[in-house]
């Protein structure tokens, strides 16, 4: 067990120096790809950049997935900024977690002493110093208090700093690798940094968890743990232990279609209720954040990442997906302008081009919203989605980032949701919580 852990640690570059080295290596590789490209071009002037871009993408992706941690999160975000996830990425999606070495027993004791002035044994009736699993930026321990089984999440020290320094490391490379200018990318980077740093604030997470679990308590088949703010602090969260299986384990038990649909429906309702009723959404649809309880309910165990949707994003975006606005070219372009998918300086040809591409993309995305029920088991829909994503990722016109910063997390949320529903092979009613729209057409 401990040996396994040690092995795991050895393979991940953890220090800033190591990580920098990793980025440097990627930079060199990419440099190499350019040399390869230009030397080939000497002999074949017609050579286009497709191969080069592919080479680059592979190298960047490989090195970033080795890095894990927030670097991978950033990679995730950047690829999502291309609006649709490349398929290879989705496979890695569920593995991407902040991967810090486990906390030693004495450090856990120290953390408790620092925040509560007591050791864990003095606070709980029972406390297991061996963690049961890793949370995204911390680890989870089991404890007992007054006969209640508890989950205690403890954050690794220095995570906040490590996120900021990772992002600083990623930035200059990302500009070069993605061919974006610093100014363009900065907006997105700041959005990502903001969310990631929010995740490290456990006091905020407890407040939000309580708020969201209360607001969502009316939903069918969705359950939340009880949070104990008096036993939580900046780096510790205490909540009741939810019994259940993770999505993967659940799927291995070969659940009935009925049960799959029930869980899928709970997921759909949970997300769409938040998006349209609360205007703020649990933006981390990572399979590890859900539990399926023995009585067939969906348990939600992590509210670290919340994306609030401002009106100037919400109305134009959802009026595109949920009305027949797309049939009206002028109005659609107007909405695209509001969302900065079409920019003020675009030429008429560019407007036409982006109008067509984004229209296709949005209508694909909005498909589940267009009917009352939608079957997420259809592979065709997902192939089309990924195929489209991969196609535009290769188009030079999309080298430049477009769209307001809110897309990063809203896309991540919705595509994450679609993916989980696809894994569940669920058929869900998509008309349960619909967008509330004022007439944007004026």
């Amino acid at each position: 067990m401990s040996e396994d852990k040690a092995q795991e640690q050895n393979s991940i570059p953890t220090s800033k120096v190591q990580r920098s080295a990793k980025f440097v290596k990627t930079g060199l590789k990419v440099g190499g790809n350019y040399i390869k490209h230009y030397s080939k071009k000497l002999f074949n002037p017609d050579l286009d950049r497709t191969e080069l871009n592919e080479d680059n993408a592979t190298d960047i992706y490989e090195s970033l997935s080795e890095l894990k941690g927030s670097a991978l999160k950033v990679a995730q975000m950047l690829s999502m900024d291309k609006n649709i996830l490349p398929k290879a990425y989705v496979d890695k999606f569920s593995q991407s977690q902040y991967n810090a070495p486990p906390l030693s027993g004495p450090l856990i004791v120290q953390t408790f002493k620092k925040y509560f002035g007591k050791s864990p044994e003095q606070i709980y009736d029972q406390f297991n110093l061996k963690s049961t699993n890793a949370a995204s930026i911390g680890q989870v321990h089991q404890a007992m208090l007054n006969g209640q089984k508890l989950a205690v999440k403890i954050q690794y020290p220095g995570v906040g700093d490590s996120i900021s320094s990772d992002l600083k490391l990623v930035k200059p490379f990302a500009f070069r690798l993605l061919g974006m200018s610093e100014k363009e990318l900065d907006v997105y980077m700041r959005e990502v940094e903001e969310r990631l740093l929010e995740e490290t604030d456990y006091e905020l997470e407890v407040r939000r968890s309580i708020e969201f679990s209360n607001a969502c308590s009316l939903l069918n088949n969705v359950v939340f743990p009880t949070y104990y703010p008096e036993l939580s602090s900046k780096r510790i969260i205490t909540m009741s232990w939810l019994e259940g299986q993770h999505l993967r384990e659940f799927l291995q038990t070969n659940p009935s279609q009925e049960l799959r649909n029930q869980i899928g429906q709970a997921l759909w309702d949970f997300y769409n209720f938040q998006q349209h009723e609360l205007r703020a959404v649990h933006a981390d649809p990572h399979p590890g954040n859900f539990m399926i309880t023995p009585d067939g309910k969906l348990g939600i165990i992590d509210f670290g990442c919340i994306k609030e949707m401002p009106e100037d994003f919400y109305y134009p975006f959802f009026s595109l997906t949920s009305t027949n606005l797309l049939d009206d070219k002028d109005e659609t372009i107007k909405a695209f302008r509001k969302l900065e998918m079409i920019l003020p300086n675009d030429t008429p040809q560019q407007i036409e081009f982006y109008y067509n591409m984004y229209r296709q993309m949005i209508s694909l995305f909005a498909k589940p919203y267009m009917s009352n029920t939608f079957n997420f088991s259809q592979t065709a829909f997902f192939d089309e989605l990924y195929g489209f994503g991969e196609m535009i990722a290769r188009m030079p016109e999309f080298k430049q980032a477009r769209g307001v910063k809110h897309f990063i997390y809203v896309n991540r949320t919705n595509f994450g949701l679609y993916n989980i529903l696809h894994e569940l092979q669920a058929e869900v009613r998509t008309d349960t919580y619909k967008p509330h729209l004022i007439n944007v057409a004026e």
Partner: protein
Amino acid sequence: MATIDSIQSAYIDYVLTEGREPQSVYLFAKNNEMTEEEFYRYFGSFEAVEQNIWADFGKKTVTEIKTQEVWPQYSAREKALSFFYSFFELLKRSRSFAVYSLKKQPRALSSPRVLDNLKVIFENFADEILREGIETGELTDRKFFSKRYKDALWMQFGFVLKFWTNDNSAGFEKTDEAIEKGLNVTFDLFQRSPIDNLIDYGKFLAKNGSLKEKMGM
């Protein structure tokens, strides 16, 4: 009647208020209503007072961590971590004195003289846990080197202490990180590592150097 404790706290109070050590034992004793003789009964100099204060931090830490319920379950690595965390937690309460005492020491490669007594306590403690670690097989017994393990720990301690005096993160969180990461590296080195296997293999090859000839290659 002066006691070790009362002299120590009077001394701490004096240096923190005045920012320097008293001009003479005579003046210090007079101000604290004792005779010079009483002072010398316990301490030979002001430096000895400081040495003893530091040693007290060490003694208190060792006593405290050994009373923890989990103590017997801890591995050598965890015991060392526990010492470091508790020591710096304790030191937090006397940070001003600690910083004063360390900052006035001349920069030198060896550890500052005020830590001499603490070093003895630390090394006794380190010896004890390292021996346990070697007995249970957690740490590797290496010829010559295993005797130097405690020196490595002491160096680590000196490093963390220096780090802590310059740490201005909230709650000294960075010091926690320095302890966790630093000690883990140190203990990783104490454990059986690829280097041991490499040396072992090297020895084997050296001993069987004539193998090739024997096999006619």
